[in-house]
């Protein structure tokens, strides 16, 4: 069982990101995934949470996630909040949308494994959103699937096509770019 918590803002596609992961895991045939939005009234710009619970076996646990294996920060501004690592397992992973140097980020979460994904840059390169509010969810999903080996490219591509309501080709390009960067990084690390 792998449990991921997403921290984003209303309108950023945080819940869609969790849904893309669920679709990608199903399409890859590697198991199943529940994508769980934090339950409440959604407002544009307000912090939102979503969860993904992934397992090779049928998933029976239907509560929220309190001790995630990974947290994903769609908005780098959350880096200042201690809430983002609340309950994170000791060997848990922090995946953050950021272009800051590795050392700067590592200093922010001492002792944690931190991976920076330049999702904002990738999103803007592909014309997703505006500099003030880039749409980073698909780039994040690309990176996440590669980092955690959740799905192969065809499974992820199909997931994005099914889950993204507009600008499908540009979203696919952003997903692919992030997926390939981090697949190469994962290979190099092995």
């Amino acid at each position, binding site marked *: 069982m792998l449990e991921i918590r997403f921290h984003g803002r209303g309108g950023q596609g945080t819940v869609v990101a969790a849904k893309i992961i*669920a679709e990608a895991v199903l399409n890859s045939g590697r198991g*199943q995934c529940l994508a769980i939005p934090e339950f409440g009234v959604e407002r544009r710009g307000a912090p939102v949470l979503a969860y993904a619970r992934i397992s090779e076996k049928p*998933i029976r*646990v*239907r*509560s929220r996630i*309190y001790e995630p294996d990974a947290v994903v920060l769609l908005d780098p501004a959350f880096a200042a909040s201690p809430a983002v690592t609340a309950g994170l397992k000791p060997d848990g992973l922090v995946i953050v949308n950021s272009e800051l140097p590795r050392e700067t980020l590592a200093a922010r979460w001492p002792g944690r494994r931190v991976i920076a994904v330049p999702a904002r840059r990738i999103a803007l390169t592909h014309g997703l959103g505006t500099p003030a509010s880039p749409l980073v969810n698909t780039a994040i999903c690309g990176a996440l699937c590669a980092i955690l080996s959740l799905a192969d490219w065809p499974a992820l591509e199909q997931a994005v096509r099914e889950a993204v309501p507009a600008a499908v080709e540009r979203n696919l390009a952003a997903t692919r770019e992030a997926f390939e960067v981090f697949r190469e990084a994962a290979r190099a690390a092995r």
Partner: protein
Amino acid sequence: MKKVLMGNHAAALGAALARVDVAAAYPITPQTQSVELLAELAAKGDFKGRFVLADSEHSAMSILLGAASVGARTFTSTSSHGLAYMHELLHWVAGARLPVVMVEVNRALAAPWNLWTDQTDSLSQRDTGWMQFYCATSQEVLDTVLQAYRVAERVRLPAMVVLDGFTLSHTYEPVDVPSQAAADAFLPPYQPPDILDPARPISLGGLTMPKEYFRLRRRIDHDMRRALGEIAAAGRDFQTQFGRGCGLVEDYRCEDAATILVTAGAVGSTAQEAVDSLRAEGLRAGCLRLRVFRPFPTQALRACLPPRARLAVVDRSYSPGASGIFFQEIKAALYPSRREIAGYVAGLGGGDITVEFLRDIWRDADAGRAVADDPAWVEDAR
């Protein structure tokens, strides 16, 4: 085909696969997407029935009362205050013996405002003459909508398919969506009996004297009890055709259990995980989920309980001044009994019910710490 769906979408697809003739609804959190998807399918021509956006839940059910009276297969969905607003019409529909099927998304009632899951809304409609099914997964929601039509049309009573707000309604998970041909093979077209037809005028529901009224009510009870067999049969046939199915109750590791967690809804799924973890510690844990609440499955419940097993009934509902609602019903169904039955009220207004929380409840009941007539109000220590 397996698709990643939220529970609300599974509900709407179930209605579309049932070839509903008339759907009338009014949106309310957390049921909204079930209405939106049906409207979308209707706009695209994938839902061939008539979709009516009503001006209230009371109107929605009134529309279905009329539509079902002229022989239409009908559907609606609602939640919480919307269901409360329908209350009068729920009695009308059941009394008129119309097989309306409704998806009900559990949400707590105000005051104060609350959006989250709580079964008091649907359980408050206990005495209206509607069948009630409580689902544990979104797959079960879709499957139960199809089964509910079959049973409702055979026993001529309406059915409510209930799912937890957000926990099921908004959670995306893989759901196997049957083909239209497979759904048609399971659910035959509706063959309505006495219908309103201008070519052959009749009157229905007119003033009825006490003696006849009494017999009509006796017949509702007779058919409601007959529904127990029909529900079990529909579940078996569904199992044969689709390879998955569910009966009146779902028991899990109960055969030799010392203490059994009793739940309804999605908590029943989490409870199985709690039972496995307790078993891994050598503890004799089991759990049982009531899938059907009306008609109450007394015999099925008794059949899967070992003679001396303690019960810990976990209620996400309560009746002020009494106790959790399943707790009352289960005690009544098992009377007379020397069995220890403990009641726990938990998670009202959407409080999360986790594996750890259920393990704590199980341990409390297993140690005999519960007081017989006084349900414990418990919350997660987190």
